[in-house]
């Protein structure tokens, strides 16, 4: 082995040009793979951390009836199935040891309406939450750029910068939060161009839609213009409202409505499913008695005016439950456990990962990683061809030397080992150098603590700070890839070299 390595090493030094060509390719490949993987891993981690810790948690619970898992960013505007039995789901979540916290939310689209007859109404994402609980679960995920954040239990809406621009496009009105004055610097390009005729509004009217397509128009007072700390490009499309206003807008049972006692006959009607609706017209005792005076149900007014407790709020309808885990690494196992528990408790709900809930955004890093892998794969194919060509030429040039070795007694395996030794050394030295430089670059970039407020760059960074990350697994993959490229590239030249006969050397002379 020592002899083989000695000959291999000296041959590399002897054929410096060829060694540099092959080594250069391996170096570039390793460098590109290392930095690329570092950037993508960092992006992956950034998106994960910012989404998990700042927006939805690790897992989302959705209704069993929900067809698409893409419940957060579905551009087709599909409605999200309601969850009407959160009190039944809550103990299931509380019973799982890896669950740190959870938050039921309403999430759907609402149509932004305007009093301008020329306006083109459009849809806006609404996230209805109990804001006090929301802030406990995501304490630092947003800041008010204008106005202020919601107080716990306070009705109103928080509009992100991007959503404000959408509102402006849909309503021809520029939102200025209640009690605030217009901030010229924050105007969008379109609003600036239209500054002379710009009309403002401090509340928005939203028409909600639910699965039955019934609708209610609700006016939301705008309390603040917000910016999500990270990934504002993606998350900035979600307006945050109080859960009760959201429910009212969507035509859901709100907690306050549920506090109003309902007469037994009316409860029967409310409990009817579609298939039984015909019974309404077949049974006399359910028909409305027109002679009976229309009086409020006793105690209804008093019940409705009483302050809502957390328990009251939770009895209403939601669409999703955000679940944050203690150990993010156990997401798959927890998902499995949670789904089993939800099924056993007959909750009619199921759990999905945040990546599934985010659709293409959740898979973005996987897609970019795939694209990089394809690119590097292409580079490696080119590298393999060049290396094969260069090594085969080298083998042909060394026919006298190799033939002589064979003549004096070197077996084919010795020749093979010598060639593999040469390519292996090139891979180790140049590939290793590329990997080390890549790792150094990644670490230096991380130490530089590059931050950005640019939305698009934030998307690439996976947050507001560019933190490339190299995992041991990534490094191992790069080492294996370089080794594989070297092996594949060396196979043919090694075969050519091992087929050289002593007689070929004499014939060459």
């Amino acid at each position: 082995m020592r002899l083989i390595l000695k000959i291999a090493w000296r041959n590399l030094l002897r054929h410096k040009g060829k060694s540099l060509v092959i080594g250069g390719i391996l170096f570039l490949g390793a460098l590109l793979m290392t930095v690329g993987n570092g950037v993508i891993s960092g992006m992956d981690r950034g998106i994960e951390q910012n989404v998990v810790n700042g927006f939805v948690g690790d897992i989302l619970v959705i209704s069993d009836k929900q067809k698409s898992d893409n419940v957060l960013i579905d551009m087709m505007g599909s409605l999200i199935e309601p969850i009407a039995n959160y009190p039944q789901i809550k103990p299931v979540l509380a019973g799982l040891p890896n669950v740190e916290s959870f938050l039921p939310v309403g999430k759907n689209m609402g149509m932004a309406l305007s009093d301008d007859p020329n306006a083109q109404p459009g849809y806006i994402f609404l996230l209805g939450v109990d804001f006090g609980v929301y802030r406990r679960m995501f304490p630092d995920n947003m800041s008010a750029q204008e106005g202020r954040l919601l107080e716990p239990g306070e009705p109103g809406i928080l509009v992100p910068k991007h959503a404000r621009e959408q509102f402006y496009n849909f309503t021809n009105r520029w939102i200025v939060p209640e009690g605030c004055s217009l901030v010229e610097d924050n105007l969008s390009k379109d609003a600036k161009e239209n500054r002379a005729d710009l009309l403002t509004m401090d509340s928005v009217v939203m028409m909600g839609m639910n699965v039955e397509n019934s609708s209610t128009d609700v006016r939301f007072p705008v309390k603040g213009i917000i910016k999500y700390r990270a990934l504002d490009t993606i998350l900035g499309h979600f307006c945050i409202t109080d859960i009760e206003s959201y429910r009212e807008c969507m035509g859901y049972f709100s907690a306050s409505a549920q506090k109003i006692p309902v007469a037994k006959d009316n409860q029967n009607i409310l409990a009817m499913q579609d298939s039984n609706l015909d019974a309404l017209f077949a049974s006399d005792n359910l028909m409305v008695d027109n002679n009976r005076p229309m009086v409020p149900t006793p105690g209804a007014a008093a019940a409705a005016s009483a302050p809502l407790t957390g328990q009251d709020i939770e009895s209403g309808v939601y669409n999703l439950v955000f679940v944050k885990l203690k150990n993010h690494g156990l997401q798959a196992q927890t998902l499995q456990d949670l789904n089993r528990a939800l099924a056993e408790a007959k909750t009619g709900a199921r759990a999905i990962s945040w990546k599934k809930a985010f659709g293409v955004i959740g898979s973005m890093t996987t897609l970019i990683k795939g694209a990089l892998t394809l690119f590097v794969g292409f580079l490696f194919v080119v590298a393999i061809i060049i290396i094969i060509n260069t090594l085969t030429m080298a083998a042909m040039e060394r026919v006298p030397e190799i033939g002589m070795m064979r003549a004096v007694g070197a077996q084919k395996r010795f020749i093979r080992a010598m060639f593999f030794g040469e390519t292996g050394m090139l891979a180790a030295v140049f590939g290793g150098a590329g990997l080390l430089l890549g790792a150094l670059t990644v670490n230096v970039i991380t130490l530089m603590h590059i931050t950005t407020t640019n939305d698009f760059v934030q998307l690439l960074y996976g947050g507001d700070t560019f933190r490339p990350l190299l995992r041991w697994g990534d490094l191992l993959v790069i080492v294996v890839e370089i080794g594989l490229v070297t092996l594949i590239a060396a196979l043919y030249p090694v075969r050519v070299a091992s087929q050289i006969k002593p007689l070929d050397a004499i014939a060459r002379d």
Partner: protein
Amino acid sequence: MTKPNIIEIRGLTKDYPLGKTTVHALRGIDLNIEAGTITSIIGPSGSGKTTLLNIIGCIDTASSGAVQVAGKEITGLSDRKITDLRLHTIGFIFQTFNLIPVLDVLENVEFPLLLMKKQSAAEIRKRAERLVEAVGLKEHSRHRPAELSGGQRQRVAIARALVTNPSIVLADEPTANLDSETGAQILELMREMNRQEGTTFIFSTHDSNILKYAKSITRLKDGRIDGGQKAQKVPARKRSKA
């Protein structure tokens, strides 16, 4: 007392295709070479000397016939066994055969011993140094082939051929690139090995000086042994005069 034959050749032919025709390089050779002898194979260019030497050295194959080297029938042997036979039994000295360019003189001479893996590194080094000294290259032992003259390279090749103490040494024009004094020294070295170790030397040569060392001469012409296809004995007195 007759010594056993180290080489036994029967009905050896070698044909090369050359375009649409076939070149008959050897046309039925029968030859026995006794162990421990110095044999010269002579003949004009194209007579088949090198081809015969290559087949005996197991670096070329016969078209037909039987060839026994050191008691082993080599036709039909696997590449691995043939290579082993070359390593352990045969030493080569070729006129322009290359050395390993990245190894120095001493390392080149050590090379076959390192392949054999029979001795320690120190023993290998000691034996290689002795051979390098014997061929007069002690001062150049750390030089690489590119730093040596043609004659010096040939001496390295000779040292490398002899270092494993092979039963047979095949030499194609071994002194062609050497000055007469060095050539004589090398030939003396070979004769010494022949006497002490009983090494069989088979030369292909035009050099009349080498013929003086030969115990027998085989003359080839047009792929056949000239003169009844028998080894031609060199008179003993002629050898002693040389």
